C-alpha cells in the first residue's frame, strides 16, 4: 500500500508552497537583541534563573521548567541579560520575557558539554535528556515533547508516527528539513524508537513533497522497521487524529489521546531537534522557519535563533513589499495575526506568512442559509452550522452538548462558509465561555 485512503471531509485550500519549497535553508545572522518569553510551550511558564547584567553563553539555561508540564528556556545567543520585562507575545497577549543583548563579537561557541550517548541510556534517561533540552512539538502546538514520551501506566505504545504532512498552505519548514537533513530525521527516529520501545515507525508525508519522500527513502536504515507513506494532500491531514486515521486506519475516540490506540505522534521537525540534542548536546535554541507570502521580498527558509524578533527576520528577507495587510505566525489556516513587528519567533513558530490585501480583504458577512457546506468540511463530523447558531445566542451549555469539545479549531468550516461566518472564532470563544461556566459551577 503506497497510497493511503485518508480521512473523510476536510478542505483543499490553495497550497502556495512553490514560493519556498525549493529554497535551501539558510542560517540567519545573530540579531542584536533576543526576546525569550517564559511561556513558549503548552503548560506552565518557565522560571527565570538569570538576573539583569548576567553574562550568558549560547546554550546556557536561562529559565528552569516549573514542574513536569513545563519546559526550560535556553539562551539562543551569547550575550548579556538586559532585563526581564513584559513584551508582546505572538499569541496576542503581553507576557514576561528575558531580553538578551547579543554580544556582536562572540564566536557563539557554546560551553563544552557532554553529548549524551543514547545507546547507553535507559528510556527514562533519554526522556530526561529531551526534557532538559527544552524540546517541544515544533509543528505549531508546542506541546512539551518529554510528556508525550512517557505514556502512563497500562498504556502500550506500539507505533511511532512521524507527522510530516505539513498540510498548512505556504509552509515548507518540514519539507526542507526532510530534503536537506534526512539522516538526521532517521537518527531522531532511532532514538525515539529506543525511548518508546516501539518496533514500528510510519512517516506520513503529503504527496506534494515527492523530493522529501525520495530523500527519506534513500536513507532508510536497514535494521529498523521504518516506512515512508505518501498521503493525499488535504487539509487538515497534519492534525494527528486525521494522520492516524490515514496511516493505520484507527479513529482515536473523542476526548482521548493517540496513545489510546497505541500510537505516539511526533512532528518531523521535533524529531530532527531531538536528533540534534543527541548529536551536539545542544538544547533547542534555534529552529527552521518559513518566511513567505506575497508580501515579503525574498521568501525564505531560515534557521533562526529562538527569540529572534519578527522585524529582524523580515529585514533579513528583504523587508515587506506590496500592500501588506496581515502578518500571520504559523500557517494561514490556524495561525495568529500579529499586531506587532517586535513579537519574537518562538520554539513553536512554524512559519511567518505575510499576506497582502489581495488575500486578506474583508468579506461581508451574510446570515447562515443552512446550506450544510460546513458539515461536509468538518473533519471531526460536527455540525458547525448548529454550533454557530448556538454561539450567536451565547448558549454555551448547549454547544457543549453538541460536542464543542471535539472541535479542534482547524478552520475548515470558516474556510468554506459562503456567508463568511467566522465559525471557528466563535467556537474558540464558545470553548472559553464553557470553561467559565464550568469554573463557576465548580
Amino acid at each position, binding site marked *: 500500500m503506497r497510497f493511503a485512503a485518508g480521512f473523510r471531509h476536510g478542505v483543499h*485550500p490553495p497550497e502556495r508552497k512553490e514560493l519556498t519549497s525549493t529554497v535551501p535553508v539558510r542560517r540567519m545572522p545573530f540579531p542584536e537583541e533576543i526576546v525569550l518569553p517564559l511561556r513558549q510551550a503548552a503548560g506552565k511558564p518557565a522560571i527565570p534563573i538569570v538576573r539583569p547584567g548576567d553574562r550568558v553563553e549560547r546554550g546556557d539555561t536561562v529559565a528552569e521548567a516549573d514542574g513536569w508540564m513545563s519546559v526550560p528556556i535556553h539562551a539562543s545567543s551569547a550575550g548579556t541579560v538586559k532585563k526581564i520585562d513584559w513584551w508582546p507575545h505572538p499569541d496576542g497577549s503581553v507576557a514576561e520575557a528575558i531580553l538578551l543583548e547579543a554580544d556582536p563579537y562572540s564566536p557563539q561557541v557554546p560551553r563544552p558539554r557532554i553529548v549524551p550517548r543514547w545507546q547507553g541510556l535507559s528510556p527514562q534517561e533519554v526522556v530526561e535528556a529531551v526534557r532538559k533540552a527544552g524540546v517541544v512539538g515544533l509543528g505549531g502546538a508546542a506541546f512539551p515533547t518529554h510528556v508525550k514520551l512517557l505514556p502512563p501506566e497500562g498504556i502500550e505504545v506500539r507505533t511511532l508516527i512521524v507527522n510530516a504532512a505539513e498540510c498548512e498552505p505556504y509552509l515548507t519548514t518540514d519539507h526542507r528539513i526532510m530534503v536537506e537533513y534526512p539522516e538526521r530525521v532517521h537518527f531522531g527516529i532511532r532514538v525515539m524508537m529506543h525511548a518508546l520501545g516501539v518496533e514500528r515507525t510510519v512517516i506520513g508525508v503529503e504527496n506534494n513533497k515527492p523530493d522529501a519522500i525520495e530523500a527519506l527513502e534513500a536513507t532508510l536504515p536497514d535494521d529498523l522497521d521504518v516506512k515512508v507513506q505518501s498521503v493525499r494532500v488535504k487539509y487538515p491531514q497534519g492534525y494527528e487524529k486525521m494522520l492516524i486515521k490515514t496511516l493505520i486506519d484507527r479513529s482515536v475516540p473523542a476526548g482521548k489521546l493517540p496513545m489510546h490506540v497505541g500510537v505516539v505522534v511526533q512532528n518531523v521537525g521535533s524529531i530532527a531537534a531531538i536528533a540534534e540534542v543527541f548529536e551536539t548536546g545542544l538544547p533547542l535554541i534555534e529552529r527552521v522557519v518559513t518566511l513567505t507570502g506575497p508580501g515579503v521580498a525574498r521568501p525564505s527558509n531560515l534557521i533562526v535563533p529562538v527569540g529572534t524578533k519578527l522585524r529582524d527576520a523580515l529585514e533579513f528577507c528583504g523587508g515587506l513589499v506590496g500592500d501588506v495587510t*496581515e502578518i500571520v505566525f504559523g500557517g*494561514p489556516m490556524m495561525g495568529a495575526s500579529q499586531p506587532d513587528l517586535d513579537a519574537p519567533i518562538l520554539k513553536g513558530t512554524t512559519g511567518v506568512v505575510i499576506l497582502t490585501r489581495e*488575500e486578506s480583504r474583508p468579506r461581508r458577512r451574510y446570515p447562515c442559509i443552512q446550506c*450544510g457546506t460546513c458539515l461536509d468540511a468538518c473533519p471531526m463530523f460536527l455540525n458547525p452550522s448548529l454550533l454557530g447558531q448556538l454561539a450567536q445566542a451565547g448558549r454555551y451549555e448547549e454547544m457543549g452538548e453538541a460536542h464543542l469539545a471535539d472541535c479542534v479549531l482547524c478552520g475548515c468550516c470558516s474556510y468554506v462558509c459562503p456567508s463568511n461566518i467566522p465559525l471557528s472564532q466563535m467556537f474558540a470563544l464558545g470553548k472559553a465561555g464553557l470553561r467559565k461556566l464550568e469554573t463557576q459551577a465548580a
Partner: protein
Amino acid sequence: MGDVRLHLTPSPHLKAPVSTPRIMWNVTASLVPVVAAAIYYFGPSALLLLAAATLGAVLTELAFSPEKNLGDGSAVITGVLLGLILPPGLPLWMAFVGGAFAIGFGKLIFGGLGQNIFNPALLGRAFLQAAFPAALTTWPGVPDSWWDLRGGNLALPFMSPPEVDAVTSPTPLGLMKFESTPTESYALMIGNTGGSLGETAGLVILLCGGYLGLRNFLNWRIPVSILGTVAVFSGLLFLLDPTRYANPVFALFSGGLMLGAMYMATDPVTSPVTNAGAWIFGAGIGFLVVVIRSWGGLPEGVMYAILFMNALVPFINRATQPSPFGERIVEEAEA
C-alpha cells in the same frame, strides 16, 4: 522598514472563493433557459407575469427589510421562481401580490434570509391558490398569434368581471386526473403542453438543475431522492394497474415536479442541513407527490408536498445529526 498598518483577523486567513450572493445569483442565472422556454411557449404573458412577481418581491424587500439588501439575490430568485409556477393567464396584479406575500410573509416576517421555515415562492403560490382559486386553476387556450396575451393578464383588481374563457386547454395532470388521458412523453419533456409558465419544459429544467448540482450550488441528493422515489413509487402503481395510474415517465415530467425538485426543494434554508436528512426529505416529498396525485382531490401535489416536508425539516435535522469522529470507547471489564 517603515511600520505598516496590520489587520488583526481570526484564523483561517484564507477563504474559499464562494459566497452566498454568488450562489443565489448563479441559481438565478441558471434559470435563464427555463425563462426562455416559458417565453417561447407562452409569449409576452410569461415575461409580464415574471416581471410582476419579481417586482412584487423586490419592492417588498426594499420597503420592509431592515437591511434593504437586494445584493444577496434572494428576493429576485424568489420572484422569478414564483413567476415560473403561475398559470399563463393570471392577472398581473395577482402575480404582484403573490411576490409581495412571498417575501413579506414567506421570508421577512420570520427574520429575513436564513430564518424562514417554508419556501417563500411556494408560500406565495399557496397564498394565491387560497385567495384566488378560480384564477389559479384556469388554463387559457393557445391564442392565434404568439404576440397575443393569454386570458386575463390585464384584469384590474376587483373590477374586471371574471374572465369567461371559451377555450381552455387543460394541463396534462388535469387530463390524467379527470379524464384518465395520458399525454405524450415527448411533448412533456420539451414542454409543448399546458401548465404553469416554467414547469412544462422538463428536460430544460433537468439540464439547468444538473448544471447547478455539478457546480455544487445545490445539494444533488435532494432532487435525486425526490425523482427516484417518484419513479419507483409511481412505477409500482403503474405495474399494478396501467389503466388507472400514470406511467413513471409521465409522473416525472408532468406538472411542477421537475422545477420543484430542482429549484424549490433544494432551497438550502428550507431543506435539511445534513446529507442523511436530504435523502429523507427528498423521499418524503416524492412519496407525498405520488399520494396526492393518485388519491388526493387535486391533480397536482408538488407544492403541498414540499411545504409539508419544509415543516418537518427541524425534526429531520434533529434526527440526523452527525456523530463525531472517533471510535466508540468499549468499556473494559476490569475498569
